[in-house]
């Protein structure tokens, strides 16, 4: 692959990334420090994703960003074959996962080094990696028995 196409892929990937705003900055700061941080409602304790001004459970506007365990379960996954986004041209088909975080919220992500024999509800843990650009993004890895204490 030429340098030029690597660069254009990074550019087209960069364009897909969510804009960093004052509201979601703590999420991105957390990933850069290898932590998954979510908004946690000060009134009822509910975690939420993505960032939102109010708690969807109790409507409180008071919250604190907290690091969560990064653990969850693989609710489901697909392999995307269709060319929808040119940034993914070199990796199709690619895996997309729907993860249920232990703290509650579901989140779309991908798996690194996905084993061939995936099964739903496999335990997964967060890993922090660049995508096709500089920014650290959240991915997950299937837990192996030796990973847990």
């Amino acid at each position: 692959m030429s340098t030029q196409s690597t660069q254009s892929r990074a550019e087209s990937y960069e364009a897909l990334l969510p804009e960093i705003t004052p509201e979601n900055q703590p999420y991105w700061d957390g990933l850069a420090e290898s932590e998954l941080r979510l908004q946690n409602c000060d009134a009822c304790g509910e975690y939420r994703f993505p960032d939102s001004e109010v708690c969807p459970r109790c409507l409180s506007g008071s919250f604190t960003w907290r690091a969560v365990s990064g653990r969850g379960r693989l609710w489901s996954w697909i392999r995307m074959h269709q060319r929808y986004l040119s940034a993914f041209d070199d990796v199709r088909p690619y895996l997309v996962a729907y993860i249920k975080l232990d703290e509650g919220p579901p989140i779309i992500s991908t798996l690194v080094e996905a084993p061939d024999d995936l099964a739903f509800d496999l335990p997964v843990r967060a890993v922090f990696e660049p995508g096709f650009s500089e920014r650290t993004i959240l991915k997950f890895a299937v837990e192996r028995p030796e990973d847990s204490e």
Partner: protein
Amino acid sequence: MQHEPTDIAIVGVGQSDFRSLYAASDRPRDAFALAAGALREAIEDCGIDKDEIDGLLTCRIPYDRLATVAGLPHPRFVHDLEGTGRMSGIALQEAVALISSGMADVVACVYGNNGRSAKVKYGGDGGGPTAAYDEMYGMTSPGAYVALMYQRYRGMYGAGEDALAPLAINNRRHAALNPVAVLQKEFTREEYLNSRYIAEPLRLLDYCLINDGAVAFIVTSMERARSLRKPPVRVAATAGMGHVTNYYTAEDFFYSASQDVASRLYEQSGITPEEVDCLQIYDNFTPTILFTLEGFNHAPRGEAWQWVDEEKIRHDGPRPLNTAGGHTSESYMQGWAHHVESVRQLRGEAGARQVPGCSTVQYMCASPIVTSHILTNDGAVAR
């Protein structure tokens, strides 16, 4: 004038010739002209005077432009519905509510779509609050969120590689009997299995198509309906419930919302699932049909993939399903054409695909707003 909600009827239907519109167009077709054409057909179908229309509900197209194009300058009630599939059922529900409350007497529900000629893309843009977070993983398009549900479903219940084939084949076989259906070339189970993946485990043949077209239906009271041209189709019951989350993916495959809708619907109508003669199921992607059959008690939970035998669901079989060809073969009118087919089946106008002795049809849509109606031809309502 006010009316009982069960004394409301669909009296006229109209739709485009989807097949001829599928021919390539070098510029976007006018969605308003398509919509006005469907409305003209619906008006001719029932023989009502256009000036009697006093409620206008539009979907995917703004009401003011359609009111201008179609010459309806003085509606007593208007509402634009967003261009999503869940809105087709809601349009009929709103018409029923308006007529039963007396807010309007004759409601035209009109849908217009030029998505194919305008080259609308369903993946890669737009979406909800998580869309930007999802796209950085290459996740996009409603079909992919349905594929997530189906991957889990088949893992939970053991559905095989070809479990969706009967649904895709059934739609195509019915489309071959429908002169206006876009895709009419039938295929075998092997051909289904050889079709390419889009969002694996879903294949191209599991996907709705994208085509230009419009649909209209006219709703009024049974009282007014009796003096119109065609036999009225009564809305015996209708109900809805949301399952709205950040994702199109519902972790219970819309089961709990569907069950809630089903219990109210069957109670209101006094009709049981077994008594329904024809099933019209919103099928943006084939797995949605399985989720719907289970949510509405037509098939045991986890077993719909075994229930959908190809001989059982054909138009002349015991449980006819999507007799016009559905979204994968007839047209992608976001549930609207399923309403037209319901009416035609109940009037005995469905030609080669007519369900014999059809007197009760159920429309169902399992989506972030689950809706369902039971429609009957007059006299068939259990009293």
